[in-house]
């Protein structure tokens, strides 16, 4: 019984969340959000792991070799792609926020100004 990978995933999730809550710079905030998301990669890959399992790619190993779960790996791939898309969108919004408000401090973004 080992839960270390899940514990690390929880730790990364909470650390990233702390960064989001206490952020004083929008760029920093976007990166913290990526940190939060990276915990899900670890969680997914950790769940699908089977002790001594090979990667589920059967090029030079016989097809009946014990291998890790391919479905969570495919999910992680989706996760990475969506993460990249979200990060790009948020950074675009950051660029616009800087243009509109002249600051990147989320506390000073005043929706009533300008």
């Amino acid at each position, binding site marked *: *019984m080992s839960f270390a990978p899940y514990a690390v995933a929880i730790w990364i999730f909470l650390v990233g969340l702390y960064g989001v809550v*206490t952020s004083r710079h929008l760029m920093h905030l976007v990166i913290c959000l990526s940190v939060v998301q990276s915990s899900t990669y670890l969680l997914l890959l950790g769940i699908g*792991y089977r002790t001594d399992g090979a990667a589920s790619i059967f090029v030079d190993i016989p*097809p009946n070799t014990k291998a890790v*779960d391919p479905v969570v790996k495919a999910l992680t791939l989706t996760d990475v792609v969506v993460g990249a898309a979200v990060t790009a969108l948020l950074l675009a*919004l950051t660029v616009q926020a800087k243009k509109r408000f002249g600051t990147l401090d989320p506390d000073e973004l005043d929706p009533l100004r300008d």
Partner: protein
Amino acid sequence: MSAGESAHTPRRPGEISFATRRTLFLVSALVLAGVMVWALGGVPSFGDYHGVYGLVLNHVAVPERHATNVITAVNFDYRGFDTLGEEFILFAAVLGLALILREGRDEEEGPPDDDASGRRVVGASNAVRLITVLLIGPTVVLAGYVIVHGPITPGGGFQGGVIAATALLFVYLGGEYLTLRRVRPLPAVEITKAAGAGAFVLIGAGGLIFGTAFLANFLPLGTAGDVFSAGTMQPLSVAVGLEVTGGFVLILSEFLDQTLVVRRRGGAR
């Protein structure tokens, strides 16, 4: 960062201080962490996973679909419909990005920073130029290799597409923005992107016409491990590769344009 730092702006009514916010978070994070640790009790022990679906796929993907990379088989065949959604998430995100970063009413495109008249262009050093020029070709070849071999070895359209887009960064790194503009005709990039997204749907529709269902694998499967094997997986991988390449080139271009070209009317950026 000290708690008293928020003093530099007058606090608006109803706004809580930085210290209060952090305390509030730490308390709720502790509760959240407790719930998560409690949930660990219901998670299978690490290395002891028995999800039937994945294990079945591991055993049937090679004999049934002649694809040695089961992850690609999941993405482009068994759960191809989900990948269609994933691809259109990326498509929509890139469209949204282009929309957000469009030229505002009070903005105009100036000459790029490294094209200012009366100033000698300080480009990259010769060493950087040489290395990037040498890297562009192999990067594009590697991208094509990764995309085409998706059903066989680790790789596929998403990974290869991102590699292909980095070739554009090499052009920027080694040359100047002006060179970049010449190698990056945006309408062509947009068409590539849309063609990739459209091709995925068309190949899926091919499954309806020649096979049994949408995204059914209707092409000859070939020999497992061969470059041309696993039926529709490879064309789908190429379609995704085109879309991702186009999408990422657009993302990179939009951000580079923001830093180098677009500025407020009157000169300030």
